[in-house]
């Protein structure tokens, strides 16, 4: 489809550590259309962050390497690009990122204005004066109050929620086609979380960019995303439209995950929650076949031998022998 801003096909990323090789991203495929928000849901170690870093060309070096598959941004292949090209043409301009920790994402010794102006200067080749003026506009756009005054302030004078707004302003300053947000709301309180999600919606409406939203929080994903891809141990196990997925999760892992989260408004009567037995596998020592098999209630012999491919089934994709 030509309306897809991003197409990822069979992406494989390995981390070469002293103790062995971690298949952090294992044959992952997904696409994002313009104006669409794709949620990438997974637990810690599921490979969701490594997928994001692969797209940004920011894998930890020298340990991380893309060993297979393709990443196409507007039809342009990114997986083979070198670092210099990535820095000059892609990062901050075509793909931008909002990261998790609002406390460490900004440099404490530079003013907010100069940090927001930096990507503008770099990619639009503006003068310092115009870049700073544009930075003020950007801060206004993300609803930082009295931006003309605030550009001369330093990060420590901003609260966590405001810093995330500043980071959002930096990320969208050059109108990227794809925005990657890695757990941007996790460090924030719920009342601030809501405000940031509104802002992300607004920024996306204005720019029509695609948004890859990486999170472990099923509630946040439900509230923000159009489609959702669920990752487990480096692989995508289920991809579906958000309403379909939450209404009828198909993969046993997705099902278990949704059933195990307490919800407001649903009476539990002090009853027990459903819980998935066992623990996620050691990424250095993934089991043969389906990685979820040791914890699965539908497991059959075949699951221990072969890993199930992601198969299209009526508008959603599922990687499970039993459900198919």
């Amino acid at each position, binding site marked *: 489809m030509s309306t897809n801003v991003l197409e990822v096909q069979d992406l494989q990323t390995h981390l070469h550590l002293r103790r062995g090789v971690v298949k952090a991203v294992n044959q992952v495929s997904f696409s994002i259309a313009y104006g669409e928000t794709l949620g990438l849901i997974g637990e*810690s170690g599921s490979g969701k962050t490594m997928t994001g870093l692969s797209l940004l060309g920011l894998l930890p070096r020298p340990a991380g390497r893309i060993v297979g598959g393709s990443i196409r941004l507007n039809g342009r292949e990114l997986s083979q690009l070198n670092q210099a090209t990535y820095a000059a043409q892609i990062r901050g301009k075509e793909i931008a990122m909002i990261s998790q920790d609002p406390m460490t994402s900004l440099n404490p010794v530079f003013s907010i204005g100069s940090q927001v102006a930096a990507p503008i200067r770099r990619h639009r080749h503006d003068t310092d004066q115009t870049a700073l003026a544009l930075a003020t506009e950007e801060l206004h756009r993300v609803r930082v109050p009295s931006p003309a005054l605030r550009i001369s302030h330093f990060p420590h004078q901003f609260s966590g929620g405001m810093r995330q707004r500043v980071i959002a302003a930096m990320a969208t300053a050059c109108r990227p086609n794809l925005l990657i947000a890695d757990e941007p709301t996790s460090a924030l309180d*719920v*009342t601030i979380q809501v405000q940031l999600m509104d802002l992300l919606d607004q920024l996306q409406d204005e720019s029509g960019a695609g948004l890859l939203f990486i999170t472990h929080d099923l509630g946040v994903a*439900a*509230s923000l995303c159009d489609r959702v891809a669920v990752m487990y141990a480096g692989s995508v196990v289920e991809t579906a439209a958000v*309403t379909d997925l939450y209404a009828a999760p198909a993969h046993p892992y997705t099902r278990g995950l949704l059933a195990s*989260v*307490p919800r407001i408004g649903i009476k539990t009567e002090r009853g027990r929650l459903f819980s998935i037995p066992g*623990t996620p596998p050691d990424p250095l020592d993934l089991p043969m076949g389906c990685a979820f098999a040791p914890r699965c209630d539908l497991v059959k012999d075949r699951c221990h031998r072969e890993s199930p491919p992601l198969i299209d089934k009526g508008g959603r994709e599922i990687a499970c022998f039993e459900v198919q």
Partner: protein
Amino acid sequence: MLNLRAIKCHFQTNGQIVRAVDGVNLDIVKGETFALVGESGCGKSTLAKIILGLAPITAGSMSFAGEPLIKFNKRFRRRVQVVFQDPYSSLNPRLKVSTILSEPMWAHGFKRDEVTQRLELVMALVGLQTNAGNLYPHEFSGGQRQRIAIARALMLAPELILLDEPISALDVSIRAQILNLLQDLQDELNITYLLIAHDLALVQHASDRVAVMYLGRIVETGPTEKIFASPQHPYTQALISAVPEPDPTIARNSNLIRGEVASAIEPPTGCHFHPRCPHKIDRCTKESPPLVAREQVQVSCWVIGSGDLNVAK
């Protein structure tokens, strides 16, 4: 069981006074799960430290099981234990699990075979295998570590366990396991829990009564069911409606409150919540509202008292 009266904890940083806890009353009943909920900076962690004797109180009094608590002596130490949020920081990486678990009993001078017996019993209770005692913490996953932390809290057979965000650092698929374990232990051993959390869905699921804190004060407290069914304080309402539900058909409700939590260094005058409150009246900026009983719930709000809030709803 545990009663706190007008507890205040103020401390100084850089010459400014932080009013972390500013006049809190709490009564925890034996056998229940009492939840303390609020956003970061609301003072719930400081209150936890006060109850554990890890932070000094500026004013107020505490009593445990009817006895006033002035010094945190060993007798009290046996009766109140804690499980912290981060299972990586709560276990000393250089000690074997059996040492970690036995330490509280050693400190209270128990005999060797008493400790060994209790160790086996408690490890079975939390679902740890018997050989786990010979291993070091790094050989366990986050969920298993939290089981060890819970086992340690159980070693002295306490009456009250303070659960400080006990599952929020764990993987989503592990959380339910630990939560169910905590509930089973409560049913089996008749322990009282004081649950400190920011996750409202968890609080609703796991607690009997709840107190909502905002900037060092309790704004609303009562039975969990009542408060979640019909929250009265504007902050409680905003907090509950802001929780993102794992259900895409529920629209995001974001228009309730604006702005961010003010600083505890210079809290707003009057009601601490008034700068963010959509219903504020003049009085809110001047006088601090007391906790007033309304049916089974206690609320601290001038507007509710005057009956005007229903119009605003």
